[in-house]
């Protein structure tokens, strides 16, 4: 049989891609009643040039019909687990009630971001000319709404027993440290559609997701929180589509026009740094808030960014994209980040919607072992001193409101990249006003778009301006919807602790 015979021998099956192309043909059409530029007004102003939207690769080729089928079954499975968790008092199986504080941080800091993501994707899903990215964004918009909803439903079980979970939505929009995640997402949502996808789909969902979602979900698994683990699995089954959208938008922009390369590089620089600063709460959660720890922040950074991200950026360098600016600063900070942040929250425990504590001795030992070059030298003595003070009835509270970085909105607590004993201050003058930054990364971001960031809603400024309920701590807490003495302050002596001790005492009694 000759080669020519073979190639025409039997008609082959249509591939999945070809079948989908037939199914969806003509869905993205050129408008005629109105010019395309009026129908899609946001596609040009960012400077990204697209010559051929048909070059967009959609590996999932999911129809709406099967999308609903998938999501419906995911929901059925998840809610069966949530119901049985509630019926069996699953909260009694967690390692320790201190763990619930990680959940409080997640519900107030992360779940509202899922909702913001829903809004962001719904918006950009309307504004892409190509049908491929439009459909991907629209499906992701629904996914994100589902994630927000399932997280709220899962965690609502804890709200029956523990403090600080009663008004996450309000807190996200008002509480000082929650302005960090809130402003991060609003920065992305108020950018153009291409920057939004670079920020959220690529930098966040692809590059940094393993450092946000995985630590929370593994933390839940290690600490007996099976309800949270299940919503993690349920969400992760959507993540493949989300991560693929992140990779595809970057490849697509880089291949469509050479002029897109420097724009994409600037966005990657910006959103790497914005995302990394947002992850400081994860660093703290991993090293301090999990009674049973998964791995240290430094280890996670090495595995997920330095190695995983390194491979990605090695591949991206073929396009002329380099590692994000200041990635080396992030690596220099990995041995100190969580300690600087937990110390800050310990200082301001009177204004947090979760409890803080000085780590137990075995926990301090764990930190010493995980951070042999920094913890004993710089941080352990401080925690031990605060413990001593607290034991003598002189628990230290910081009553001075901190200066905030205008870009990331985190208090100016970070130290110089090459000197962990000196606070890093940066500032610039713009239109006669001085603006302050925690880092060169945050300052660069401001300098490129000062008109955007001078509008920042900075919690400390707002308190001083009298916009947050009043000038005293109880007034501000009231405005935050936080209950003084219940939601805030140390775990030791909290209603959470009292309740947990009663339960566990009952358990011991019934065991006898």
């Amino acid at each position: 049989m000759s080669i020519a015979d073979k190639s025409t021998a039997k008609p082959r099956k249509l591939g999945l891609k070809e079948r989908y192309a037939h199914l969806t043909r003509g869905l993205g059409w050129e408008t005629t009643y109105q010019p395309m530029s009026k129908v899609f007004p946001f596609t040009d102003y960012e400077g990204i040039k697209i010559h051929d939207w048909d070059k967009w690769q959609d590996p999932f080729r999911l129809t709406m019909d099967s999308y609903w089928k998938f999501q419906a079954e995911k929901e059925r499975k998840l809610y069966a687990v949530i119901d049985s968790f509630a019926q069996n008092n699953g909260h009694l199986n967690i390692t320790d009630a201190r763990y619930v504080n990680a959940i409080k941080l997640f519900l107030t800091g992360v779940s509202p971001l899922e909702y913001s993501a829903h809004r962001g994707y719904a918006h950009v899903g309307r504004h892409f000319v190509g049908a491929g990215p439009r459909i991907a964004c629209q499906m992701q918009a629904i996914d994100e709404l589902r994630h927000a909803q399932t997280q709220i439903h899962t965690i609502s079980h804890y709200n029956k027993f523990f403090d600080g979970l009663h008004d996450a939505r309000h807190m996200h929009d008002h509480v000082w440290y929650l302005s960090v995640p809130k402003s991060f997402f609003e920065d992305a949502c108020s950018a153009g559609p291409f920057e939004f996808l670079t920020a959220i789909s690529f930098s966040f969902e692809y590059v940094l997701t393993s450092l946000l979602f995985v630590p929370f979900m593994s933390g839940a698994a290690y600490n007996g929180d099976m309800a949270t683990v299940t919503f993690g699995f349920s969400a992760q089954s959507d993540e493949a589509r989300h991560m693929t959208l992140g990779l595809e938008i970057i490849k697509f922009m880089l291949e469509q026009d050479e002029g897109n390369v420097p724009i994409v590089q600037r966005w990657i620089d910006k959103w790497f740094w914005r995302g990394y600063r947002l992850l400081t709460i994860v660093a703290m959660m991993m090293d301090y808030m999990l009674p049973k720890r998964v791995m240290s922040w430094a280890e996670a950074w090495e595995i997920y960014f330095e190695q995983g991200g390194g491979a990605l950026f090695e591949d991206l360098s073929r396009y002329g994209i380099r590692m994000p600016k200041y990635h080396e600063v992030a690596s220099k900070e990995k041995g100190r980040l969580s300690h600087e942040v937990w110390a800050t929250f310990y200082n301001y425990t009177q204004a947090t919607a979760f409890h803080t504590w000085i780590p137990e001795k075995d926990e301090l030992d764990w930190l010493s072992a995980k951070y042999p070059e920094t913890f004993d030298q710089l941080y352990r003595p401080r925690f031990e001193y605060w413990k001593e003070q607290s034991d003598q009835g002189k628990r230290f509270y910081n009553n001075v409101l901190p200066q905030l970085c205008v870009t990331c909105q985190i208090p100016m607590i970070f130290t110089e990249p090459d000197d962990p004993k000196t606070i890093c201050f940066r500032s610039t003058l713009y239109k006669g006003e001085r603006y302050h930054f925690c880092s060169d990364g945050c300052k660069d971001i401001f300098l490129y778009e000062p008109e955007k960031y001078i509008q920042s809603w900075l919690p400390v400024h707002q308190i001083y301006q009298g916009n947050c309920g009043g000038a005293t701590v109880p007034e501000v807490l009231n405005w935050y919807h936080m209950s003084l003495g219940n939601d805030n302050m140390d775990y030791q002596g909290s209603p959470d602790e009292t309740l947990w001790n009663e339960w566990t005492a009952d358990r011991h009694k019934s065991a006898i």
Partner: protein
Amino acid sequence: MTYQLTIEPLGETIPIREGQTVLDACLRNGIFIPYQCNHGLCSTCKITVLEGEVDLGDASPFALMDFERDDKRALACCARPMSDITIEADVDIDPDALYLPVNDVVGTVVGLVDLTHDIKGVTLEVPGDGLPFQAGQYVNLTVPGLDEPRAFSLANAPSKANFPELHVRRVKDGKGTGWVHHDLKVGDKVPLSGPLGRFYVRKSAANPMIFIAGGSGLSSPKAMIEDLLEEGWSGPITLFHGVRQARDLYFDGLFRELEAKHGNFTYVPVLSESDGTDGWTGETGFVHEAAIRRYDGVFKGNKAYLCGPPLMVEASIRALMKGRLFEHDIYTESFLTKADDNAKRSPLFQAI
């Protein structure tokens, strides 16, 4: 125990061991199925089992739904065969692939020639139908005393299917290449299986073609170019062949002859270690640098075929991408096993 795994819509059949995942078998046989997490959570590698039985393994109930299990879906990264199986996977259909069946044949050595000081040209004779292949593909050659066969590209034009031709560079301490260089004699019988690989000319695209070969990586491009010129291909074809010194060039005369005969074919030999005393007046430096000079750094609109050592292939990919030619238009045959390569790569690229 080994089963047969047939992948639709390609129609290709590959062996799969009991306990081996479908994904692993596919990747190891050069068939790329999209995948991501590789442990049953993300559902990127979903397939349909058309015939036969699989064990679904640890596929997460959220990544592989009940209704999908009823519809014979599986995740390739977790599914293991329980019989011969046929699957449908999300693989790209290539209009230029002939999907020739793999045959096991025995060739008799009829020609042994030193092409250079370290490259041996081996010509075999295979009677009957010979070894039909697509120019660019390779064969696995069974070497006495070695468990794993050795892969060599076919350097003859497909029209000479009865006379497979291999170019074998002597690898220092290499057992397989050592055997070819020192032990193989005219008249020896050699078991071969092939054709294998997905490196072949995309004729349906009709773009101008650039071939970049390094050292004995010339074998595939030689077969591809001879095939194209034989059938009267009229589009521009440029071959860059990078070697160290003039003594490493081979088939130099053949390509100069072809260049003189075919106005659409350009041959550019490149020496990376020309010391100026050898009277060389041609291109020098690395082969990708010569390509950049010849194309003024602009590669858009071409199809590029790269064959040679991994470093040369990577340098060439970077040069081509800088010149605005991307994954869709670049085809590579790197002298490296795929399993070695996957470890430190991200999922950004699939084919290059």
